[in-house]
């Protein structure tokens, strides 16, 4: 249950996050008797049980921090089975879909389950996620994960091709999220699944042509407030740095003896004075595009 509520100490069966560095974050299912192999050496799971979340764990040749799982850390640690949605898009999706305690939300497809965890968190404790995945292997892995994470009460995962077979849900949902190659073919089914008093919809598409077709279909089917947007994360690299100060040759405005001048030059040329500053320089290599997010409202229908 560690995904749905905080607990102080690690117990057998928990899923924990191992934080080695910002670029090396993994997840671990704690199983008494097993041993974790890290690049810093081996650690017995048994030694982790009872440890406080947030603790530093020493390995033979280094250390890591063992953290309580959150949707955001899970997104950084999740085993990629497909291209996943990252926290920047996820936070926009959960916000714009107006999810709250008790909401019912539909997701297609499940993919690596990165978004699913955030959707479930937003509707806990009484809400529900219906998630659909047509890829057999991914479906099975996601189902296993929901079980491992103690989330089964709040999620139903179905192995189905919703593009052809629809959601088969009638007026139960407050929100629908689509990450499909042809979302427009699912909008009728989504409309049917949304509650009669209405709800919100989101479609994620990487290509603008898909967006055009989706927006046109949404308008045609009576969705309102159609808005397409994009958000990108720009990380900053903080460092204390400096720039040398070049020698300006301002000393000798008037004529001086030749010898003295040469001496002066030599000493100036090696001036090591420096201008120091702390900078938050944007990281050079950034994700330039994930996808376009289209949101719309359906009012009582």
């Amino acid at each position, binding site marked *: 249950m560690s995904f*749905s*509520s*905080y607990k102080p100490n690690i117990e057998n069966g928990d899923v924990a996050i191992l*934080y080695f560095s*910002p670029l090396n*974050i993994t997840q671990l299912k704690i199983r008494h008797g097993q041993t974790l192999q890290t690049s810093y050496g081996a650690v017995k799971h048994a030694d982790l049980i009872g440890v*406080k*979340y*947030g*603790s*530093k764990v020493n390995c033979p040749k280094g250390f890591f*921090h063992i*953290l*309580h799982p*959150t*949707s*955001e*850390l899970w997104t950084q640690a999740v085993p990629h089975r497909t291209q996943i949605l990252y*926290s*920047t898009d*996820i*936070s*926009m999706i*959960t*916000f*714009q879909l*107006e999810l*709250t*305690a008790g909401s019912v939300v539909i997701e297609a497809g499940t993919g690596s389950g990165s978004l699913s965890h*955030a959707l479930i*968190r937003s509707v*806990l*404790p009484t809400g529900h996620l219906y998630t659909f995945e047509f890829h057999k292997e991914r479906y099975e892995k996601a189902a296993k994960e929901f079980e491992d994470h103690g989330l089964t009460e709040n999620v139903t995962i179905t192995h189905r091709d919703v593009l052809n077979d629809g959601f088969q849900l009638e007026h139960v949902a407050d929100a629908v999220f689509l990450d499909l190659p042809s979302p427009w073919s699912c909008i009728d089914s989504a409309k049917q699944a949304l509650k009669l*008093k*209405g709800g919100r919809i989101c479609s994620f598409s990487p290509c*603008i042509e898909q*967006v*055009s077709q989706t*927006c*046109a279909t949404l*308008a045609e089917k009576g969705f*309102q407030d159609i808005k*397409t*947007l*994009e*958000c*990108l*994360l*720009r*990380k*900053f690299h*903080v460092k*204390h740095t400096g720039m040398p100060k070049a020698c300006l040759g301002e000393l000798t405005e008037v004529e001086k003896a030749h010898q003295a001048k040469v001496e002066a030059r030599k000493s100036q040329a090696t001036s090591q004075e420096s201008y120091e500053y*702390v900078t*938050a320089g944007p990281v050079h290599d950034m994700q330039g595009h994930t996808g*376009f997010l*289209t949101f719309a*409202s359906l*009012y*009582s229908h």
Partner: protein
Amino acid sequence: MLSDPQTTSKTGIQEGTRVILQKSEDYKSVIVKKDNVIRMGKVRFNLNGIIGKEFGTQLLIEDEKLVPIDKPTQDVQPMDVQACSSDRSNKDLTESDENQRIKQDEILKMKEAGISGEEIVDKLIENSQTFQNKTEFSQEKYIKKKKEKHVAVIRVLKPTTRLVFEMFYRNSPADIGYMRVDTFSQILAFANIIRGSHIGIIDTYKGLLVAAVLDQLGGTGAVVQMIPDNIFLKDCLKYYDLSEESLESHYHYGIEQLGTLESDYNKDDTMDQSNMATSTSSMKMDYETPCNLPTDDNQSANGTDTLKSESVESTESQPSKRKRKREEKKIKTPEELEADRQVRLKNSVKRKKAQKILLDKNLDALIISSKFHPTPLLMRMLEFINPSRPVVVYSQHIEPLLDCYMKLKGSGKGVNLHITETWYREYQVLPQRTHPVVRMSGTGGYLLTFTTITP
């Protein structure tokens, strides 16, 4: 969002219900009241037409009244007038308003004569000397523009965090520290607001984050709003339709009282109460200049909140509000004094609970978004949070976060430190006219995020 079912029942929206009115991209929060006249942009209308309607209903503004629409129309979307190159191809058009034969005073006369907005737009098209020579796109744009001006349609919406945020951002972005929707949603997600958890918040920007988190918690757990320099802001709470339980889960505590936290907690209640009263009465209620938000609540007109009732919402919706307000200036009756005592008692109990959470170092998240230097606030508040919990600090400028980052890095009190900004862009998606929106926001502020660790 709403927990009380009566407002969505068959009888529809009733008097006293908080709604948000949407007119194109303009939002206004009001409490439905008979004969109450509202102004949105250039139009005025009373709210009578809303009573009995469902949320989501579209209404037409005609002759200062809200009347039902015959057939539901696609909301008028603001369309970009400049961007499409096709616009430049209107070869022989000279830019001028002289192309319209109907003059402004004639339009006014038509309106007075009760001619509908739709009809006026039709007449304007007929009498435009250039309309027929325009490209198809330009014609469409022309119609949209005129419709936006003359055909006023509003939609009645249920207040949600998304809509309240949108309203603030559009109308008074400075009041919320120029925080943009992408930044706001990132904060809410990163803080990992699980039901039942204790969220510590410092928020001097209208309490928008406080309200959003309370809404997310759904009446479970606690929001402990930490008050810096006696600046207690919770303006935003009243724009929500928060349940009684949600409002009950809102706690507050003065930051400068942290030094005496333990002794205050152990003190007997009587002492505490009188003490409380003193410190409360000395609080500056609104640090910033009055917020220019479009609301017709009289109470918000003076731009301040009062502490005496935690449930501003229910108080406000009383029809006797004005009367009560007048009475406040008089000497209090014994009944009123008793009511005041009840409130103080309740506050005292809540105060103990907040103190307990802090004493137990039992916060599950920390959000800082204020006009104060964040570094000292952050370092101080870190004493009261569990290990392995998320912390988010918002700042309009990056420099204060840099200072925070360096101090924090040095302290070794967190992992997964990041300073980020998000880049946000909206698109106009229309057949043959798809492009990013021409005006955008250059900045939505910066975030410092990290996870606490055991000391």
